[in-house]
C-alpha cells in the first residue's frame, strides 16, 4: 500500500524527530530517518531538524555533509554510485568519480538539474575483484574507465 502524506515537509520532519530525544548524539540517526522518509535533506528539512535539536541549520548541515550518505536534492531518475573502497581506489576510482562529476556537472550527493542523474559515493561495494566498479540503477558495472562510464551514462539517458 502506498501512503501519501499531505502534511507539510517541516511537520513530517518534526514527526520523525520527535521519536528521538533532542540530544546531539541522536542527530545522525534522526537525519538518516528524515532522509529515508523524505528521500533527501531539503533546506526546509534541515531547518526543521535544527529547530528540534536547538542547533543552527549551519551546524546541522556541517555535520551532515561530513558523511557521504546524505543527499540534498531529490534523487535522480537514474542513480549512479561509484565505489570508493580501497580496492577500487587503488584502481583509480577517484579519477572515475572526477570524470562523473565533470560529465554530469554535479558533485557526489547531488542530482543533475534536469533530474536525470543522481551521483553517490559508496564505501566498499564488496565487488573488489571487479574494481573499479560502479552501480547504475542497481546493476554493477565492472572495471570502468571514464570513457566506458560516459558511454554507460549516454545509454541510460536515451
Amino acid at each position, binding site marked *: 500500500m502506498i501512503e501519501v502524506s499531505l502534511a507539510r515537509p517541516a511537520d513530517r520532519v518534526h514527526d520523525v524527530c520527535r521519536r528521538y530525544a533532542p540530544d546531539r548524539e541522536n542527530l545522525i540517526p534522526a537525519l538518516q530517518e528524515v532522509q529515508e522518509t523524505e528521500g533527501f535533506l531539503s*533546506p526546509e528539512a*534541515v531547518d526543521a531538524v535544527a529547530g528540534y535539536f536547538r*542547533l*543552527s*541549520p*549551519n*551546524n*546541522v*548541515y*556541517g*555535520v551532515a*555533509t*561530513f558523511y557521504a550518505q546524505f543527499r*540534498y536534492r531529490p534523487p535522480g531518475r537514474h542513480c549512479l554510485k561509484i565505489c570508493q573502497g580501497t580496492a577500487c581506489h587503488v584502481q583509480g576510482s577517484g579519477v572515475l568519480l572526477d570524470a562523473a562529476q565533470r560529465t554530469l556537472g554535479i*558533485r557526489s550527493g547531488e542530482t543533475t538539474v534536469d533530474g536525470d542523474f543522481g551521483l553517490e559515493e559508496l564505501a566498499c561495494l564488496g565487488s573488489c575483484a571487479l574494481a573499479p566498479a560502479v552501480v547504475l540503477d542497481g546493476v554493477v558495472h565492472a572495471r570502468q574507465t571514464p570513457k566506458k562510464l560516459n558511454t554507460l551514462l549516454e545509454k541510460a539517458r536515451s
Partner: protein
Amino acid sequence: MKEITLTIDGQPVRVDGGASVLEAAKALGIEVPSICSHPDLPAYGACRMCVVEIEGVRGFPTACTTPAADGMVVRTESETLRRLRENTLELMMSGHPNACLVCDYRAVCEKHKPTPSKAGTSTRCGLCGNRSECDLREIVLATPGRNLGLPTIYSHKKVERDDPFIERDHNLCILCGLCWRICDKIHGQPAISIVRRGKEARIAASFDRSWVDSGCTFCGACVDICPTGTISDRFAKWHGHPDNKILSTCMLCPEGCSFYEMTENNQVVATRMTGFAAEDRLCALGRFAYPQLLQDRDRINRPLLRESGELIPVSQEEAVDALGAALDGFRDGSFLFLGNDTELRETKHLYRSLATDVLKGKYHFMAAGSGAADLPETIAEKIENGTIRAVLSAGDLLPAELRERLAFLGVIDAFPSALSASADVVLPASILAETTGTFRDAAGTVKGVGPALPAPAHARPEWHWVRDLAQRLGADDWRRYRYAPDVTRTIGDDPAPAPLRTRPRDSVKDALPARFRGHLLADRVPALRAFGLPFTPPEATATEKRGFLIRRKEEIAPNFHSFLVEAPEIARYARPGQFIMVMAAETSERVPFTLTDWDPENGTILFIIEETGRSSRELCALRAGERIAHVSGPLGAPLDLTGANTVALAGGCYGIGAIYPFAKALHKAGKRVFVVLEASSHFLIYFEDELREFCEAIYFTTRDGSMGRRGAVHDVLVELLQSDDKRPDAMAAIGCTLMMQMATEATRPWSDVPLHVALNPIMIDGTGMCGACRVSVGGETSFACVDGPFFDGHEVDWAELASRRGAFVQVEVEAMPQNGTLAAHACRH
C-alpha cells in the same frame, strides 16, 4: 579554585586548577606553538601543533586540551616534538599555497615589494592581504630548518566575492575552526560551519547560502580571528597591519557600541570589537560601513556660498560671516535648527543653545535612521504657513517642497544632496571618527568619542561651526568653548536619544537604520544594498554595443586570465614585443598588456592579464560576450630577435604569455629556441603546451621546487650560457622587475649576449605624458612606453627604477574597488 603546581621545562609554576597545560606554559612565558587555540574559546585540539611530553603520560598530548595537574612534569621542547610539529606543519602547508615561505629569495623580494600585490586569489604570501598579520606564516617562519617537503596541492577553489564586505579564499583555509567557533560563542548559534570533508571541506553556511541569508550579522569576528587570509574584509585587506587603534564609540545609531578604530596614516581602515564576547559585538554598519563612510570620495570639503545664483567655494571666515549675517534677520522665532539625535553631546548641546538662546527659535533632532520624509507634521505645517522662514539643516533632512517655502536655508553636512545644492550656505562637517567629545547612548550611558582624526580639507566639527556662528551673532562668551571638554562641562543632564525599534546587532535583515544624516546609507556604501537597504535607483543609461568584443575568456591559472578579443586593426599590424593599452570601461584607468598572439585573418588578438590591482580586476570581471571599452595599439617598439641564431626566452607571471610571440616568430624563421619558465609553484605554470610547439627545449623553475628545478630563470640562463651546444646569442626575460633584475645580474659576466627585458610593469599611461616610466638606460633617460618596452637589461639602472616605484603603492591601495565582482561599480554613476 584550588591552586596547583606543576613543572614545565624544569621551571615550577602555580596556576588555578582547571587551567590547561598550554595556559600554564604561557604563564611562564613559554610559547608553545598553537594555531587552533584561542584565549576566548574552549580548547579544540585540531591543529596538533601544541604537542608536549608529560612524564608518566604515553604519547604526545596536546597542551591546549590537557588540564594541568598537580605535580605534572611537562616538556615543551625536544627533538621528537620538533619533528612532530614539523610533520604537522608540513601536512597543513601542503594544502596551503606556501611558495613564499620556502622561497630562497623571500627577503629580497619582500624588500622589493614591501606590500603584497592585490591579487584576486592569494596564491602565496606575496599576494595575500593577510601577510603582515598572519599567525600561520609566523609559525612557519619560526620553525627552524622548516622543511615543507610535500608538494603543494592547490585546490583551485573559487574565491567567494559575492557577499557584501566579506570575501573568502578557501584555498588558504587550514580548517582550524576558529571562525565558526567564535561565531557560535558570540551569537549562540553559528552562521557558518565546516561543511563537507576531505579536500572538499570548507567554511560555509548551510546549503552554501550567501552569508546574507545564513543568519550572519556581519559582525566581523570571524574576519578578525581567522589566522590566515581566508576570510577577509574586502575594504581593509590590502591596507596591511593598522598602525594605530583608538578606543571610541560608534555614532551611527543610538546603541553607541564601543569599538576600536583601526587606523593607518590617520585614516580609519576598519573597526574592531573590543573583545570576543556577545556584548562586544558590532553590527554590519559599525563594523564595515563606518570606514567607507569616512573615506567616501564625495565628501563636502569646502564651505560654499551662493552668489548670483551659484554656490562658490569661500573661506571658513567668509562662510561663518555670511551665515551669521543672514540668520541675524530671523531672531523673531522664525528660525529652526534641524539636527540628528545620534550626535556628539557637545554638538547637540551647542545647537540647542544656538537655536533657543541665541536665535530665539526652535530646534528638532531627527531620530536615527530617519530622513526628510520623517519630518514631523507640526514642523512641516509651520514651514508651510510661514511661521518658520529660516532653517539650518545638519544633513539631508528637509523635503524639497518645504525648502521652496523658506527665505533662507543653511546646510551643514558631510555628503552632497539636492538639499545642499539648493542651500544659501553650505558648511563641511567633520563626522564620526573625525570628532571628539562624548556620546549618550539610548540606555543613557555616556561614552567617550575620539580623539579626533583629520577630516577632509576644510571640514570642521559641527560644534566648532556653531560656536563661531554664535560669536558672530553676538554671543561673546561662547569664546570659552575652546576644546570639547569646555562644552562637556556645561551640558548637565541631557536626554538620551530615542532607541531604535530594531536591533542592528542581531540581524542584517530589516534591522539596520537606512539613513545617516538623512542620506541613504546604501547610496554611500553600495554593498549595503545586499541587505535590502533602500537606495536611489541609478538613472538608466543607454547600453550601446560599443567597444571590443571578448570572444573567449578563461582563467588559465589562478589569477591569470586569457582574453581573445576582436580587434582587427591591431591584429593586422602587431609585431612581437608590442603591447596594447586597455580600458575596461569608459571611466577606467588605461593599463598596458603585452600581446601574446594575434590572428590577422580572424581579426582577433590574445593577451593575458594577471589579476593584481584595481584595473585588472575590473577587466577580469568581464565575461565572454561582453565588451572592453577601449583597446589601443599596437604600441611600443617591436623587438626582432630573428637576427640571432639561438635564443633563450625566459618568462615569469604574465611574461609566460609575453614570450610566446617571440617563440613563434623565431621558430618560423628556423632559429633555435629555448624556453625557460618561472613560477612560484607548479600550479601557476600555464601555456606550457603552446610554447612547447615552438621550442627545442622547455625548462621549468619553481620557487618551491614543485615543478622542474627549484630556483629562478637565471639559474637556467646561466647554464645555457655556459653550455657548449646551447649557448644563446640573444636572450629575453619578461616578468616582474625583480625577476628581470636578477636575470640581469646573473648574466652580467656574459654581457656580450644581449638580455632584452620588457619594462611594461612600470608604465602608467603609455603615452610618455605621465613620466612614471622614466628609466635610465646606458646613462640616458628613456620612457619605457615610447622608447621601449624593451631595453638591454645590462644597461638599465635598476636601483633608480626600484626607488621610484615605491611612490605608487599607496595610491593603488586606495583605489581598490569595494564591490566584489564590480557589478555594483557601474551603477554608482
